C-alpha cells in the first residue's frame, strides 16, 4: 500500500497520467488535422487544350472543390505568377495523351492535404474512366469500373477454408504484445530502482526486521503493478473519450469507413478499417491482454526485484540488466516470428514458453485460434502462472539474502549460493 500510495500520490504520476493522454490526443489531432483540408474550399483550374474532358467532371460529395476548365495550354510560370490565375489554388494539366499514358500533373500553390489530393485524383480518374469506357468499349462506366477492380486473392487454410485470418490482424496482436512488454519494462525498472533506493538508503534493514522479505518484495511488485494498472486505466479512459469526442466533433467524416470508401481509398486501407471496426474482438482481447499483462508482469517483475536486491553497486545493476532487456527484446522478436511462421514447432514453443507467451498469445488471439484449439491459450496461461510463482519464490530467496549485502560485486557463484539458502 505504501508503494501504491507513494506512486499515485506523487506529482509525476498525476502529471504523466494526465499529460500522457493529452500528448497522445494532441498528436492524433495534429496528424489528422494536417490530413484534413487546410482551406475550407479549393478552386482548381483544369487545363484541357484538347477538350478531352469536355468541360465535365464527376460530381462528388465534397463540395469544397470548385473546378474551372480552360481550353488553353497554360505555362507553369504563368499560372504561378500571372495575375489571371491567382484565384486558383491548383492547376490540373490534362495532356493530349492522358488516355494512354495515364499521366497528369497537378501544380499547387500550397501543398494540399491528403484528403484534398485523394478527392482531386478520385474525381479526375472517375471522369477519365467514363471517357475511356465510352470511347473504347460498349460498356457503361459502372460496368467498366467493375472490370477494372484489382484482383482479390485471399489466402485460405485448406483444412479450414472458413477460417478468417489476416496478416493485418496479427500485426494488431503484435502491437498489443509490444504494449505489454513496454509496460513490463517501464514498471520493472520502477521496481528495480525502488528496491535499489531502499537498499542504498538502508531503510530496508528496518523493513525486513518487521516484514518478511518475501512479503516486502511481493508488496513492492504488486504496489508498482497496481499503480501501472491505474495509470493504464486512466490513459485508456482519457484517450478513448478524447478520440470519441474528436470523431464526433472535429473529424466527423474522417473516421467513417463508408466515406473513405466513397472517396476511393485503397482496398488495403478498407480492409484495415474493417479489421479494426468489425473483425477483431476487442472486448475479449482486452480481457486476455489484461490477464497476460498481469501474470507476465509478475513473472518479469520478480526478475527486476531480485536484480535490485542482489546488486551491490549501480554499475553491477546495469551490467546485469542487459540480459534482462535482451530477454524482453527476444520476446518481441518471437511475436514477429510467430506472425510470419505461425505453424512451426518453434512457434508452438514460443506460445508456451513463459518468457515469450504474453506477446505470442496476443498475436494468436488477434489472428484467431483454429477451431477446437482455443485450449492452448489456457495451457499457456497456466504455464505462465506457475512459472511466475516459481520465479517469485526464487527471487524471494535472492531478495532475502542479497538485500542487506552492500558494496559487493555480484558473482554468479554467489547468486547460486543465495538461491540454495532458504
Amino acid at each position, binding site marked *: 500500500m*505504501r508503494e501504491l500510495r*507513494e506512486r499515485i500520490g506523487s506529482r509525476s504520476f498525476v502529471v504523466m497520467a494526465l499529460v500522457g493522454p493529452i500528448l497522445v490526443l494532441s498528436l492524433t489531432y495534429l496528424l489528422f488535422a494536417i490530413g484534413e483540408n487546410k482551406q475550407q474550399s479549393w478552386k482548381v483550374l483544369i487545363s484541357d487544350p484538347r477538350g478531352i474532358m469536355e468541360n465535365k467532371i464527376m460530381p462528388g460529395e465534397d463540395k469544397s472543390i470548385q473546378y474551372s476548365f480552360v481550353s488553353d495550354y497554360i505555362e507553369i510560370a504563368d499560372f504561378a505568377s500571372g495575375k489571371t490565375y491567382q484565384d486558383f489554388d491548383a492547376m490540373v494539366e490534362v495532356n493530349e495523351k492522358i488516355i494512354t499514358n495515364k499521366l497528369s500533373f497537378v501544380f499547387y500553390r500550397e501543398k494540399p492535404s491528403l484528403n484534398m489530393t485523394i478527392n482531386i485524383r478520385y474525381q479526375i480518374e472517375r471522369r477519365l474512366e467514363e471517357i475511356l469506357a465510352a470511347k473504347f468499349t460498349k460498356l457503361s462506366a459502372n460496368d467498366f469500373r467493375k472490370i477494372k477492380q484489382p484482383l482479390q486473392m485471399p489466402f485460405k487454410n485448406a483444412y479450414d477454408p472458413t477460417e478468417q485470418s489476416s496478416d493485418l490482424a496479427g500485426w494488431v496482436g503484435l502491437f498489443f504484445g509490444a504494449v505489454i512488454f513496454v509496460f513490463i519494462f517501464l514498471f520493472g525498472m520502477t521496481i528495480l530502482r525502488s528496491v535499489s533506493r531502499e537498499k542504498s*538508503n538502508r531503510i530496508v*534493514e*528496518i523493513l525486513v526486521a518487521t*516484514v*518478511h522479505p518475501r512479503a516486502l518484495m511481493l508488496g513492492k511488485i504488486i504496489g508498482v503493478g497496481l499503480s501501472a494498472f491505474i495509470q493504464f486505466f486512466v490513459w485508456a479512459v482519457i484517450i478513448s473519450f478524447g478520440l470519441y469526442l474528436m470523431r464526433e466533433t472535429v473529424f466527423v467524416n474522417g473516421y467513417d469507413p463508408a466515406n473513405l470508401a466513397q472517396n476511393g481509398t485503397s482496398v488495403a486501407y478498407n480492409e484495415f478499417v474493417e479489421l479494426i471496426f468489425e473483425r477483431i474482438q476487442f472486448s475479449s482481447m482486452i480481457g486476455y491482454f489484461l490477464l497476460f499483462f498481469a501474470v507476465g508482469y509478475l513473472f518479469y517483475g520478480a526478475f527486476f526485484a531480485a536484480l535490485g536486491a542482489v546488486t551491490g553497486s549501480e554499475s553491477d545493476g546495469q551490467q546485469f540488466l542487459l540480459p534482462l532487456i535482451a530477454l524482453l527484446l527476444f520476446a518481441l522478436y518471437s511475436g514477429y516470428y510467430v506472425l510470419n511462421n505461425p505453424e512451426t514447432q518453434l512457434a508452438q514453443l514460443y506460445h508456451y514458453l513463459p518468457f515469450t507467451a504474453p506477446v505470442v498469445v496476443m498475436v494468436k488471439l488477434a489472428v484467431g485460434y483454429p477451431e477446437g484449439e482455443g485450449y492452448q491459450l489456457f495451457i499457456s496461461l497456466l504455464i505462465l502462472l506457475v512459472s511466475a510463482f516459481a520465479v517469485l519464490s526464487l527471487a524471494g530467496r535472492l531478495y532475502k539474502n542479497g538485500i*542487506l549485502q552492500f558494496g559487493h560485486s555480484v558473482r554468479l557463484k554467489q547468486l547460486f549460493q543465495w538461491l540454495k539458502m532458504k
Partner: protein
Amino acid sequence: MLEIQQITKRYQRKAALDDVSLSLKTGEIFGLLGPNGAGKTTLIRVINRIIEPDHGTVRFKGDLLKQKHLIHIGYLPEERGLYKNMTVEAHAFFFGALRGMTKSDIKQALDYWLNRFDIQSWRKKRIDELSKGMAQKVQFICAVLHEPELLILDEPFSGFDPVNVELIKQELVEMKAKGKTILISTHNMRSVEEICDRVALIHQSKKIMEGRVSELQESARVGEYAVKFRGTMIAFVNALWTGFELIDKEILGDDRFVARVKMRGDNQFEDLLKVLIGTVKIEAAWEVLPSMQELFINAVSVKEEIGK
C-alpha cells in the same frame, strides 16, 4: 524476556557467531560490546529474524521467537535510513501501521514524542529537508513509537551532539523504569557505564565476558585509589614512601591536586589514609575501578594474545 541459546552462524567458512548465549531480563538495559566485526550486528539480526542462525534458538518471553513477536520489538539499526521524500508524520504512520498500531494510537504517540524532543515543527517536513542528526531523532521515534517491550539499538548515540545524547539516555532510563528491556550495541563506553545494568563482550564471534558493569569493574580492580587533597605534591609523595606508588596526578589549583595511587604489597586503603593524614588536607578519596573502555581493551588484547 529474551533467551539467546548457543547461537552459531557461519558465512561460508567464516564464523560470525560461535555458540553465543545471552539472557536479557525484563526492565534492564543490556550493553552488547565488541570490536568491529566481532559479530554484534549478526546477533542483532538473528534476534530480529533478519537472518536465521545455523544452530541455536532465540526465545521471546519463553516462546520460540516467531514473526508475530516482531511487533513487540523495536529496532534502530546502525545504518540509518528513511524515505527521503516522505514527511516525518508519514513515516510515523507507515512504521506504526507496520507494527499494528491504529491511526489514533500513532497520532497520540507521535504527538508525545514530538513534544518530548521539542520538534513539533518538523511534523510536515520531508526527511531530505532535515539534517542528519534531526533525521536520526525521527528514526529513533519511529523505533519506539509502538512502545515495544524489547528495544534493540545499534549505536543509538552515533550522530548525536552531547545534548541529544543525554536526552536519549534519559529516555532509555525512563523506558527501563517502565519495565522495558533495552539492548544497546555501542562503542560509547562512557554511556555503557552510565546506563547499562549488564554487558556482554563479543570478540571474534565468541562471548568472552558477561556480567553487571559494577561487578566486572570490581573483579578487575587493581588496587588503585584517587585522593583529592590540599597541600604540596612533595609532601604527598614523601608521605607515600615505599608503600604506595604514585600513578598519576592532576593539578586543580596552586595547592590542590588529585593523585592516583596504587597499593604495594599488603597495604590497604586505610594504610594510605593513615600516612596522608596530617601531611596533606584530604578533601576526598575513592577507589579507581577500571573503566569499561579499559576492560574492553584489556579483554580484547588478552584474547588476541591467546589467539597468537
